[in-house]
C-alpha cells in the first residue's frame, strides 16, 4: 500500500514541492491537498498585474484542476483545515472532511498583517493577499472613488498602483519617512516617490494611523496627530505574518514562523513545512524565490533520497509597477568600513549604488536602469571578487545583448517583436507569453519552452532580465550554486573536487559516488565528466566515445545535412607547395563538394559522408597530415603572421614560434575550444589580443595576453606579463593551458573563466608562483604524451570501425 501524503495549503510553495516530488518519484504517495481558496494553484505574485488589469485570472493559474486529476491527487478546494491530530496522524477540515497521513506538508503561507486600530473590521477595509481581495478591490473601484493604502512597502505600493490603474484616487499612508525602506536607500526611495507622484499617486509620510472611521462602511482614516483623510476603501498593505495558527494548535514549535531545520522538517519528524509559513535559521521569507529551493529540498526528503539540504536564500526585489524599473538586493545600506560606488544621473532618471566589502558586492540598489541587476545579484551570491573591474562595474555587464541588438540593453523598453534570441528566432513577446502561460520561473524552463538562449547563450542576460521583470521577485535566481545538470545537485566545482580528492576514475564511479539521479546521466553531464576524467587522470582514464558529442566521436564537424567537414592541421598556418598539391589531389580524389580557407589559416573540406571519413583520413595521413581538431573542445589553431623572417616590421620570428607552440599543444583536450596566436610586432596582424592566449612579439621580448575571444562577444585579452625568451613563452603557455584545463568548468571559454576567477588569481598562479607554474607546465607536458596520437590515422587503420560503417541486412 502506498504511503499517504497530505498537503495543507494549495499555494505556490506546496504545489511546487509536489511537482518536484512527482518528478523524482511519481508513485510513492497517495496525495491529498487541502486549499482554503476555491481555486487551483495560482501565481500569487501575479496578483498585482491582475489588479492592474494587465492579466486575467486564467493568465495567472499555474495548475488547473486537470493537473490534480492527471496526477491522481485528491484536491479539497475551499476547505480549511482546522485541526491536525498528530497522535492519530490525521487532519480535519472545517466541513468535517478528514484525511490520514504518513507524511504531512504544511504550506499555509502567510496572512496579511492588519494593524490593530479601532474600525479595522469595517466594510471596505481589506487586505491584499488573494484573488478574493483583488475582486473586492475591483468592485470597490467601480463603485467608489477614494482609496487609502496603509503601507508604503512593496505590497502597499503595488496595491496602490493597481487601484490607480482602476481609476481611483489613491493616497498611500506610510509610517516612516521613506518608501520601501526595507529594500531602498533614501536616494532611490525619493526617486521612486517622485516618479509615482508624477503618475498621480499621493503620499502621507510619517503618518501613524489611529482609527478607521465611518458609520458601517469606512468613510475615512484618522491619524495620531488628529488629522483625517476621506476614504471609501482602505487597503492594509503593511506586511504579512506567517500563518502558524494551525501548527501552533497542534503543538509544533513556532517562533515567527513554523521552525524547520535544513531538511525543512518541523519538530515532528513526520511533518514538513515550506514557503512563507516556515522559519529557517531564524528567517521567515516573505518573497517567493526561496520556495523553489525549499520545495526541491522538501521533495528530496519526502522521496526518501535524503541528501538535499537547504542553506537559506539571498533574495532580491523588483517592484512590479509597469514602467518603474527598480531592483534591490542584499545589504544596500552600507555598514561602517564598507565602500560604496554610486552612479547618479538625475536627468536620465537613473541611480545605481553598490555596497562593496572586501572586494565583493554585498548589496545593490538600482533605479531607472535595472538591466544589470541579475548580474550584480550573481556577483553577490557567488562572492566574486570585483577588484579587477570595479572601475567599470557600474556601466554594466558588457556581454549583455550582443546577438544582433547592439547596445540596446533596456530590455523592457524593447517592443514585443524585438528578436531576443538570434539563433532560434525568438521574440520578446514569445518569451513573455511563455513565462506567463506556462508559469515558468527558471532560465532552464524558459530555454526548454521557447529555446531562447539555448544555443549560443549570448542572449542569456536578456532572457534572465525578461524573466526577472515578468515574474518579479519570483524569479528563481536563488541557488547559490548552479547544479551541473538536471541529473545532480552538485556544481561543476564540487564534481571536480570530488574527482580529485576521492580519486574517482570512471564515469559510473563518479555517478555512484555523487548519487546521480539518472542511471546513465544525460547529454550535458556525460561529456563534462568524460572531459574531467581525461584531464585529471591522463594515461589512466579510458576515453568513453559514447560520452562525447558526435563531432568529437566522429572526429569531424557534423553539418546541417549530416555530412562532415575535414580540416587537417597546418602548423602555424605555414604550408608548402607539396602540402597544397597533396591536399588538392586528395580533395579531387574524394570529390569534395566545397574547399574553403578557414579563419584559422587552414583548409576546410566540406561535405564528406561519414563512411568516407576513414578513407580520406588515411590519404591525409599518408601525405603527412594529422587531425586539426577543428571539431573538438581542444587546441584548435595557432595563428601567426610572417614575423621577422620576411616582414620589415617584425621583431621576432613569430611564425617559427607559432609552429613550436602548436607542436607542443596540439591534441590536447580542453574545457572548450582554445586558440592561440603569435604576432610579430605590436601591429598585431595575427589578432593575438582576441585569442585565448596571445603572444605579441616586441623588440625586447614577448608580451603575453590571456582570456580573449573573437566569437559571440568580442573580448580583448588581459595583459598577463612580459617575458624575454621563447622558452619562457612555451612554459607560460603550457602552464596557463593546464590551469585552464584543470580548473575551468566544461564548456567555459577562457574569457568567462578569467572573469569568474579574476585576472589577479591567474597572475598569482602563473606569474608570481614560479614553482607552481613549472609544476603546471610539467603536468601539461605529461598529459600531452597520451594526447598526441593522431585520431584520424588510428581510425583509418580500423579503430572504432563501427562508428563509420552502416549496418547491412544480413544474408
Amino acid at each position, binding site marked *: 500500500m502506498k504511503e499517504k501524503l497530505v498537503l495543507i495549503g494549495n499555494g505556490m510553495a506546496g504545489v511546487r514541492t509536489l511537482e518536484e516530488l512527482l518528478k523524482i518519484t511519481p508513485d510513492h504517495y497517495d496525495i491529498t491537498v487541502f486549499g482554503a481558496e476555491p481555486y487551483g494553484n495560482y501565481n500569487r505574485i501575479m496578483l498585482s498585474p491582475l489588479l492592474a488589469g494587465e492579466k486575467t485570472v486564467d493568465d495567472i493559474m499555474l495548475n488547473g484542476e486537470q493537473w490534480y486529476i492527471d496526477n491522481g491527487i485528491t484536491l479539497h478546494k475551499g476547505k480549511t483545515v482546522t485541526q491536525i491530530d498528530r497522535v492519530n496522524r490525521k487532519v480535519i477540515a472545517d466541513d468535517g472532511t478528514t484525511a490520514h497521513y504518513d507524511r504531512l506538508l504544511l504550506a499555509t503561507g502567510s496572512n496579511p498583517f492588519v494593524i490593530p486600530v479601532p474600525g479595522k473590521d469595517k466594510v471596505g477595509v481589506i487586505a491584499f493577499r488573494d484573488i478574493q481581495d483583488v475582486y473586492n478591490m475591483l468592485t470597490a473601484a467601480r463603485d467608489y472613488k477614494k482609496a487609502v493604502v496603509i503601507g508604503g512597502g512593496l505590497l502597499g505600493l503595488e496595491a496602490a498602483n493597481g487601484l490607480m490603474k482602476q481609476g481611483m484616487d489613491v493616497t498611500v499612508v506610510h509610517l516612516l519617512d521613506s518608501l520601501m525602506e526595507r529594500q531602498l536607500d533614501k536616494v532611490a526611495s525619493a526617486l521612486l516617490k517622485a516618479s509615482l507622484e508624477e503618475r498621480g499617486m499621493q503620499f502621507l509620510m510619517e503618518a501613524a494611523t489611529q482609527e478607521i472611521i465611518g458609520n458601517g462602511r469606512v468613510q475615512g482614516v484618522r491619524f495620531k496627530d488628529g488629522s483625517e483623510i476621506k476614504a471609501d476603501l482602505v487597503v492594509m498593505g503593511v506586511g504579512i505574518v506567517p500563518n502558524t495558527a494551525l501548527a501552533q494548535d497542534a503543538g509544533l514549535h513556532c517562533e515567527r514562523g513554523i521552525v524547520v531545520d535544513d531538511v525543512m522538517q518541523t519538530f515532528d519528524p513526520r511533518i514538513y513545512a515550506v514557503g512563507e509559513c516556515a522559519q529557517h535559521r531564524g528567517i521567515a521569507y516573505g518573497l517567493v524565490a526561496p520556495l523553489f529551493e525549499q520545495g526541491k529540498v522538501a521533495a528530496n526528503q519526502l522521496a526518501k533520497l535524503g541528501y538535499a539540504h537547504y542553506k537559506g536564500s539571498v533574495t532580491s526585489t523588483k517592484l512590479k509597477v509597469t514602467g518603474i524599473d527598480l531592483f534591490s538586493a542584499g545589504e544596500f545600506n552600507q555598514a561602517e568600513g564598507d565602500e560604496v560606488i554610486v552612479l547618479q544621473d538625475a536627468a536620465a532618471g537613473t541611480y545605481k549604488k553598490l555596497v562593496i566589502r572586501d572586494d565583493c558586492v554585498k548589496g545593490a540598489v538600482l533605479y531607472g536602469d535595472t538591466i544589470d541587476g541579475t548580474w550584480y545579484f550573481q556577483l553577490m551570491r557567488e562572492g566574486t571578487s570585483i577588484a579587477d573591474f570595479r572601475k567599470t562595474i557600474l556601466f554594466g555587464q558588457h556581454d549583455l545583448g550582443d546577438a544582433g541588438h547592439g547596445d540596446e540593453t533596456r530590455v523592457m523598453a524593447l517592443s514585443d517583436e524585438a528578436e531576443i534570441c538570434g539563433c532560434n528566432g525568438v521574440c520578446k513577446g514569445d518569451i513573455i507569453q511563455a513565462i506567463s502561460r*506556462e508559469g515558468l520561473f527558471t532560465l532552464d524552463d524558459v530555454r*526548454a*519552452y521557447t*529555446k531562447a538562449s*539555448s*544555443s549560443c547563450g549570448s542572449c542569456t542576460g536578456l532572457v534572465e532580465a525578461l524573466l526577472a521583470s515578468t515574474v518579479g521577485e519570483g524569479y528563481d535566481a536563488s541557488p547559490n550554486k548552479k547544479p551541473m545538470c538536471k541529473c545532480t545537485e552538485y556544481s561543476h566545482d564540487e564534481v571536480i573536487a570530488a574527482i580529485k580528492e576521492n580519486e574517482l576514475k570512471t564515469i559510473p564511479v563518479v555517478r555512484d559516488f555523487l548519487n546521480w539521479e*539518472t*542511471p*546513465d*546521466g*544525460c*547529454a550535458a553531464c*556525460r*561529456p563534462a565528466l568524460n572531459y574531467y576524467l581525461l584531464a585529471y587522470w591522463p594515461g589512466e582514464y579510458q576515453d568513453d*566515445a*559514447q*560520452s562525447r*558529442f*558526435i*563531432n568529437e*566521436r*566522429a572526429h569531424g564537424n*557534423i553539418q*546541417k545535412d*549530416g555530412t562532415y567537414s575535414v580540416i587537417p592541421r597546418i602548423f602555424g598556418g605555414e604550408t608548402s607547395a607539396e602540402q597544397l598539391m597533396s591536399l588538392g589531389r586528395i580533395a579531387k580524389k574524394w570529390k569534395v563538394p566545397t574547399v574553403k580557407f578557414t579563419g584559422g589559416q587552414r583548409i576546410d573540406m566540406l561535405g564528406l559522408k561519414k563512411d568516407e571519413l576513414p578513407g580520406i583520413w588515411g590519404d591525409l595521413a599518408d601525405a603527412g597530415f594529422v587531425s586539426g581538431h577543428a571539431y573538438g573542445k581542444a587546441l584548435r589553431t595557432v595563428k601567426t603572421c610572417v614575423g621577422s623572417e620576411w616582414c620589415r616590421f617584425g621583431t621576432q620570428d613569430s611564425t617559427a614560434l607559432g609552429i613550436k607552440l602548436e607542436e607542443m599543444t596540439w591534441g590536447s583536450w580542453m574545457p572548450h575550444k582554445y586558440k592561440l596566436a603569435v604576432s610579430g610586432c605590436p601591429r598585431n596582424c595575427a589578432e593575438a589580443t582576441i585569442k585565448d592566449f596571445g603572444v605579441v612579439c616586441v623588440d625586447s621580448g614577448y608580451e603575453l595576453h590571456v582570456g580573449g575571444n573573437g566569437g559571440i562577444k568580442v573580448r580583448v585579452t588581459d595583459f598577463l606579463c612580459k617575458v624575454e625568451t621563447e622558452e619562457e613563452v612555451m612554459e607560460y603557455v603550457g602552464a596557463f593551458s593546464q590551469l585552464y584545463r584543470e580548473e575551468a568548468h566544461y564548456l567555459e571559454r577562457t574569457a568567462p573563466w578569467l572573469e569568474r576567477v579574476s585576472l589577479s588569481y591567474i597572475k598569482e598562479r602563473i606569474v608570481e608562483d614560479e614553482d607552481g607554474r613549472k609544476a603546471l607546465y610539467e603536468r601539461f607536458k605529461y598529459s600531452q604524451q597520451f594526447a598526441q596520437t593522431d585520431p584520424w590515422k588510428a581510425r583509418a587503420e580500423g579503430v572504432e570501425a*563501427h562508428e563509420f560503417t*552502416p*549496418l*547491412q*541486412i*544480413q*544474408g
Partner: protein
Amino acid sequence: MANWTEIAKLEDIPKLGARVLKMDSVDIALFRTATDEVFAIKDQCPHKQGPLSQGIVHGSSVTCPLHNWKIDLASGEALGPDEGCVNTYEVKVENGNVYLALSADDVAVA
C-alpha cells in the same frame, strides 16, 4: 505483414550507442541502451531532420546532435515541452541477434 529480418549482432551496436541501417527509402537507427535494450527508429529528428543515431543515448532516450531535442526511443515522441514524433520500428533480440520487423515493401527496396 511484418517480416523479421536479421540486421546485426547485439555486440555490433555499442552500448549507449547506435548504428544506422541505410535503405533506399529510409535510414533506420538502431539504439542499444545500457541495459541492452534495443530500439529502432527513423534516423531523422522531427525538428530539423538531424541524424538521431549520432546523438548521446541516456536511459531510453537520445538527444539529437543538432539542437538537443530529446526523443523517447520506445515511442518516438519528443520529450519535454518539444512536440513531434518520429517513426518507430519493431525490433527484437534473440540469441544475441537483432531482428527488425520490416514490411515486404521495405525489404523490396533494400
